[in-house]
């Protein structure tokens, strides 16, 4: 593609590479795709691009389940950044669930674990070959997400120049032997949160690998309107918001149970003065959503609408037991809204505690108590939200994050003796 060669010439001329060197970002999917880590990668690339020569190596897949080849293989330009797309030779295996069960069983073998990584997809030998053959052409390689093949097998091909963004969750997969070396091999690790770093250190004993807590930046769009959201969906009264994939593994099932129980108890409770509250659910549904007049499912919503929804809600509920850094948490905080999450979601609950931007529940009783409190005591709700907003402003702004990454890359290059 001519755009690519023009671009690389341009970036050479502009002497960007003189100051900050070159960077290849490796991520399993890239471009107009869903997914937290992928969105994170895209946002970071767009913000790093003015400072150094950035390229992306990824697959042709658009979704993380089938990994079906959707984008054309070859070179493209996305948002002004050269992107190298490689075909997926094998997507998710038909017997993936079986492989997963075998790999997570206590009696698993090393062979079971390798079969799991393979069955999970995306298997893209050409992407690995690219990393291998171009390992001297980039000063730094930034790998996103510990769990997929491009990272597991890619980092060991260029460990001395690799920076890993693990987006690690405390989930069964992370205890597999096949991932152990990955956390020791890279030149540096960029964590999203303090809690993620603590979890990884506890598990891998890899404190020696230089690391930084980077996070992702949050920027609010212009013209956010709570009224527009309420009006469009005909919503009245207090709203609690859930945004994300609607699946059992994200805790959606428990949320629906707790919600129904809480509302039903309230209604039965002899004419409570509280107005009817509604649970607003937005995202891709992969499980049934209860049909109740106090649960509204909106399907997937646009970014703009998401911010309108934050503005309209009392609080964001994140029931997932295994969240690492959740972008929606930061966005809700930036909007001054508190978070409600389970205490067993250690990373998220730890962050919420540190920020003072929400409340965590150990049980249904506490869940009910927290929601009641937020409804009855708006000043508590607002002060939690305000603390969340301050936390984001202190920690998660793009200029600070971009600077931190540039410093880290400079360190990697210094260590490489260049």
């Amino acid at each position, binding site marked *: 593609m001519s755009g690519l060669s023009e671009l690389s010439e341009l970036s050479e001329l502009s002497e960007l590479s003189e100051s900050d060197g070159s960077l290849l970002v490796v991520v399993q999917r890239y471009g107009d795709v869903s997914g937290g880590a992928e969105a994170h990668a895209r946002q970071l690339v767009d913000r790093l691009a003015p400072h150094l020569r950035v390229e992306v190596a990824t697959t042709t897949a658009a979704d993380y389940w089938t990994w079906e080849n959707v984008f054309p293989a070859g070179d493209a330009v996305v948002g002004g950044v050269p992107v190298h797309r490689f075909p997926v030779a094998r997507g998710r295996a038909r017997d993936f669930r079986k492989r997963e069960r075998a790999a997570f069983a206590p009696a698993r*073998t*090393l062979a079971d*674990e390798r079969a799991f990584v393979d069955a999970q997809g995306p298997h893209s*030998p050409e992407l690995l070959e690219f990393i291998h053959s171009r390992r001297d052409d980039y000063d730094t390689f930034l790998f996103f997400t510990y769990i997929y093949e491009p990272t597991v097998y890619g980092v*060991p091909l260029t460990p001395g120049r690799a920076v890993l963004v693990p987006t690690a969750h405390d989930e069964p997969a992370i205890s597999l032997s096949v991932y152990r070396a990955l956390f*020791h*091999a890279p030149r540096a690790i960029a964590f999203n949160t303090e809690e993620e770093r603590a979890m990884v250190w506890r598990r891998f004993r890899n404190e020696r690998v230089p690391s930084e807590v980077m996070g992702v930046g949050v920027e609010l769009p212009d013209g956010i309107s709570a009224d527009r959201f309420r009006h469009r969906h005909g919503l009245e009264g207090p709203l609690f918001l859930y945004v994300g994939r609607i699946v059992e593994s994200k805790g959606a099932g428990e949320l629906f149970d707790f919600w129904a129980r809480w509302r039903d108890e309230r209604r039965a409770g002899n004419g409570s003065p509280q107005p009817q509250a509604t649970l607003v659910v937005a995202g891709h549904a992969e499980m049934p959503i209860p049909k109740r007049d106090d649960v509204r499912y909106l399907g997937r919503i646009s970014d703009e609408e998401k911010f309108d929804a934050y503005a309209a809600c009392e609080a964001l509920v994140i029931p997932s037991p295994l969240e690492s850094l959740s972008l929606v948490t930061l966005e809700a905080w930036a909007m001054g809204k508190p978070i409600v999450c389970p205490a067993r979601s250690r990373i998220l609950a730890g962050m919420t505690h540190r920020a003072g931007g929400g409340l965590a529940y150990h049980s249904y009783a506490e869940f009910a108590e927290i929601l009641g409190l937020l409804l009855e005591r708006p000043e508590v709700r607002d002060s939690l939200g305000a603390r969340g907003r301050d936390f984001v402003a202190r920690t998660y702004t793009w200029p600070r994050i971009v600077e931190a990454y540039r410093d880290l890359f400079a360190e990697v290059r210094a260590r490489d003796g260049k």
Partner: protein
Amino acid sequence: MRILVVVQRYGAEVVGGAEAHARTLAHRLARRHEVEVATTNALDYWTWAEHFPPGESADDGILVRRFRVRSGRRKDYKAIESRVLLGVHTLVDEYAWLRAQGPHVPDLLEFLHRDGQRYHAIIFYTYIYEPTVLGLPILPERALLVATAHDEAPLRLAPYRALFQLPRAIAFLTPEERDLVHREFRNEHIPSDVVGAPLDPAPRGDGARFRAAHGIEGPIVLYLGQVSEAKGCAELLSLWTARERDATLVLLGHVRMPIPSTPSVRALDAVSDETKWDGLAAADVLVQPSRFESLGLVLLEGWQQGTPALVQAGNPVTAGQVRRSGGGLTYEDAGSFDAGLERLLAEGGARGERARDWVRDEYAPERFDRRIEELVSIAAVSR
């Protein structure tokens, strides 16, 4: 502490520098710790043919677990190797090379996966073989690597790139090995030390007995070790026979190549330990033509007998030992070989005596133990 030593071959009858080092280390550590060994059931490193019975056995109080070699060196290994080292090839070829090299021992890897966490520390020997390159990444958080790395082409292959970033600590045999690994992998941040090898005091050899037994008069230039092209013996013999010699070149070791029939060369094939010490004592100069020595044990043994050495300048390890000990000279061509030989023969014993003291201090077993203990304690998981 409970310590596991992982090495590609193990046992009293196994010939090989790294393997001997591993066994010595296991026994020394076993005086203070609970030591086990995980290895293959191969005896030789060329075919990796199954030799020992698989399963558990004891070596002087050390529990040895032998795992079956599922595939040894492939018949077409040489062809695969030259493509990978010299030709255009892919990443997949590099991993195919590793498998073709042997020994492929999946049961050993499964053992590490299943039981590795029972050990506080695991010591992996020799970077190049599967048990280390695929085994260490399973337990990097408690690994001590004894790489025995040489400056050779495979060191730059993909399978090894991450290996040197993973262990908690690295034990080098020589300062040259440390410099090579640091230069190649930029992994100076990993705690390491040059441990060398523990050398027990050598018995005094009887030079006169050796001369009498083999009927050799006049100056003796000794080569000790396997007599093969790989060890640089072809080059040595061609340098030696290029001109008339007043001295006799004595070759002590298994002969694996043709030897020119001339009175100034005597090949004595493999010999007993006693004869070895006698030969080293009898020699006026020890010559070491190999370019790929990782420890240069023979030089050290020569110095224990006070014999100066003439070594290949192209081998950084032996050249470095000679420089540090002051116990010899280096050569790089026929001119410097002849000149070095002449000088060493003319000088007499002072150089060798100095090197004797150096070996005694540098390779003292207590010193080795101290350094190994320190590295093991860095590697060990205490929980």
